[in-house]
């Protein structure tokens, strides 16, 4: 018994040690963040840790950041918030008040960014976060929060555009969304988009985050005959949704999800059942996105996959862009004074692997969402700012006809 207890505690100590990464020398510019490395959001949280580390490594390899004629290296301080919002707020407080980091990078997810941005505002330390898209984060006139995800309210913007042009266009739409900050923002925006497009909404239903049973909602979709189904939720919910849609033989003409489709492990978990699912991404690993440090987005994606063993999606690209935005802004400001860097961030305008980084007045970036679809196990971009890119597979056939 005692030896068991010791080996467990030894293991836990090992884990704790492993998390204290990247020793910073006195002169380094330290970026602090609290990220979901364990707990229910760990699956997406890891994108941010990996992207932050990769970007810092790459920038340092190129000599670091130029401050007043001197090359200074970047360093990272990352805590694991265990997917707990309250813990993440405490950790950001610790980062600025005790660890005295220079600047803040964000956590994953809107509800985290919403709470954590109160810390950056209070201490007037700029935070650039690539994990929270909810419009709520940017509607409070905060001056020190910047975001590199496109606004939640417009996640389904390009999808709704596409719906109008489909042949035959879906006659009725069902909108389902989870009850958290991001998904509620998505739903509020989408409702308006659907109204403007003149599409009839036959179902508009909020569900509990982490719901695992969608049989009731799916049966209602079948019963009200919704032809297009738009779901704003989390990956676990969407996995369950698709699996249960199949087992109840519910096949609308199309369904689209805010998350999941761009992620490799989502498609792996579903296998062939992932086909026909639509999603959206503000980022594709295209060579058109030139980057000062990585060359371009395609090279970034290759190097990332080689280094971490999985494909990056827009979360990772957004996280890497946050680090680059700081590097650029610090050079522009010519120092690390938080207020000056804050103003430099607000004025940023540069091309990155993630796209053009330029923040609007409220601190949020605006990038068009490209509609993507899983076709034969591969993600295909089907609809973008300039209309159809590749032909969408529409309508989705019945499950037993695949």
């Amino acid at each position, binding site marked *: *018994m005692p030896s*068991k207890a010791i080996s*467990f505690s030894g*293991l*836990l100590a090992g*884990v704790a040690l492993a998390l204290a990464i990247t020793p910073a020398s006195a002169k380094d510019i330290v970026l602090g963040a609290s990220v979901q490395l*364990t*707990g*229910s959001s*760990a*699956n997406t949280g*890891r994108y941010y840790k990996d992207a932050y580390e990769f970007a810092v490594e790459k920038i340092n390899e190129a000599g670091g950041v130029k401050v007043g004629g001197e090359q200074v290296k970047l360093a990272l301080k990352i805590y694991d918030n265990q*997917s707990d919002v309250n813990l993440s707020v405490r950790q950001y407080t610790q980062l600025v008040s005790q660890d005295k980091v220079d600047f803040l990078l964000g956590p994953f997810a809107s509800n985290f960014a919403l709470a954590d941005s109160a810390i950056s505002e209070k201490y007037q330390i700029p935070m650039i976060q690539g994990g929270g898209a909810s419009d709520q984060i940017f509607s409070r006139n905060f001056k020190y929060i910047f975001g590199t995800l496109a606004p939640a309210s417009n996640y389904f913007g390009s999808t709704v555009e596409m719906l109008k042009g489909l042949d035959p266009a879906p006659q009725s739409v069902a909108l*389902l969304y989870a*009850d958290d900050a991001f998904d509620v923002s998505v739903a509020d925006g989408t409702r308006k988009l659907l109204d403007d497009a003149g599409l009839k909404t036959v179902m508009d*239903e*909020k*569900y*509990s985050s*982490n*719901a*695992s*049973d969608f*049989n*009731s*909602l799916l*049966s*209602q979709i*079948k*019963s009200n005959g919704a032809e297009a189904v738009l779901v704003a939720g989390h*990956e*676990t919910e969407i*996995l*369950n949704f698709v*699996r*249960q849609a*199949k*087992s*109840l*033989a519910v096949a609308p003409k199309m369904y689209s999800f805010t998350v999941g489709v761009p992620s490799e*492990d*989502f498609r*792996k*978990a*579903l*296998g062939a*059942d992932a086909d026909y699912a639509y999603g959206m991404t503000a980022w594709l690993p295209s060579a058109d996105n030139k980057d000062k440090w990585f060359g371009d987005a395609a090279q970034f994606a290759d190097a990332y996959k080689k280094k971490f063993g999985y494909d990056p999606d827009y979360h990772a690209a957004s996280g890497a862009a946050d680090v680059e935005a700081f590097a650029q802004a610090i050079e522009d400001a010519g120092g690390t004074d938080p207020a000056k860097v804050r103003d430099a961030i607000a004025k940023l305008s540069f091309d990155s692997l993630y796209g053009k980084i330029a923040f609007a007045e409220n601190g949020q970036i605006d990038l068009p969402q490209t509609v993507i679809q899983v076709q034969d196990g591969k993600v295909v971009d089907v609809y973008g700012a300039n209309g159809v890119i590749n032909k969408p597979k529409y309508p989705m056939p019945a*499950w037993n006809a695949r």
Partner: protein
Amino acid sequence: MDLLAQILINGILLGGLYAIMALGLALVWGVLNIVNLSHGAFIMLGAYLSWYLYSWAGIDPFLGLPITAVLMFCLGYAVQRGLLNFVVRGPMFNTLLITFGLEVVLTYLAQLAFSADFRTINPSYAGNSIPFGPIVIPQARLMAFGIAILLTVAMWIFLLRTRLGRAIRATAQNLVAARLYGVDPRHLYAVTFGIGIGLAGVAGGLYGTVSQINPYIGATLTAKCFAIAIIGGLDSPLGVIVGGIVLGLIESLAILYVGATFGDVASFGVLVLVLILRPSGLLGKTT
């Protein structure tokens, strides 16, 4: 009307899945008086075990269930023998603390071992459905339901009719008398906990076949199992089936008629009602 019928079918099948998840928890609680807060974590481990058996060894998830059950039984036996037996006669608070700690350790070890990737056990027939007029019956859920009924009845017969089952019940009822008749309680406790964990393993395999697996599914499953065990009562495995189906139906109907955020509100509301009106469960003996 079709919709209501479909929702009722959904609820009953969901209830079967719930019942098999809660069966082991109720057994351990009833016999050992341990509220095993790590039960959901063992369901998670069982799900991963089935996933590996299916993805690596190519064993059909339903045919692999006995293997999962046996391996999980051994694990449960070892945990009881090497850990829980030391506190089983202590205050309930100690067992709560230990099993809670076990849940945390198992969850985080699972993330280290399996990563936080989402997985599904997805054999070709997992999404099949049987049309029944306008109603559709999901095949995997029906099979899970069948297994739940089968195991519950088997458990009931085992506890009532077999020598070992009687010894387990005797130990729970009167430890001194059972000892006088030559029962070794440490071994029996471990067997009981092993059976509970074996059942959790089976539940995990079935859960992975209809839902998704990640290291963090345990805690919510424990809460659900806890509610089912209370609603059904701890006296008989049949109570667990009733508790599961009641909960499945209530959740499904609440989502249809009240709203999709009210599933949990309804199920835990029923839990509170049962605690007030029938504290020993719907099928429990009133004292």
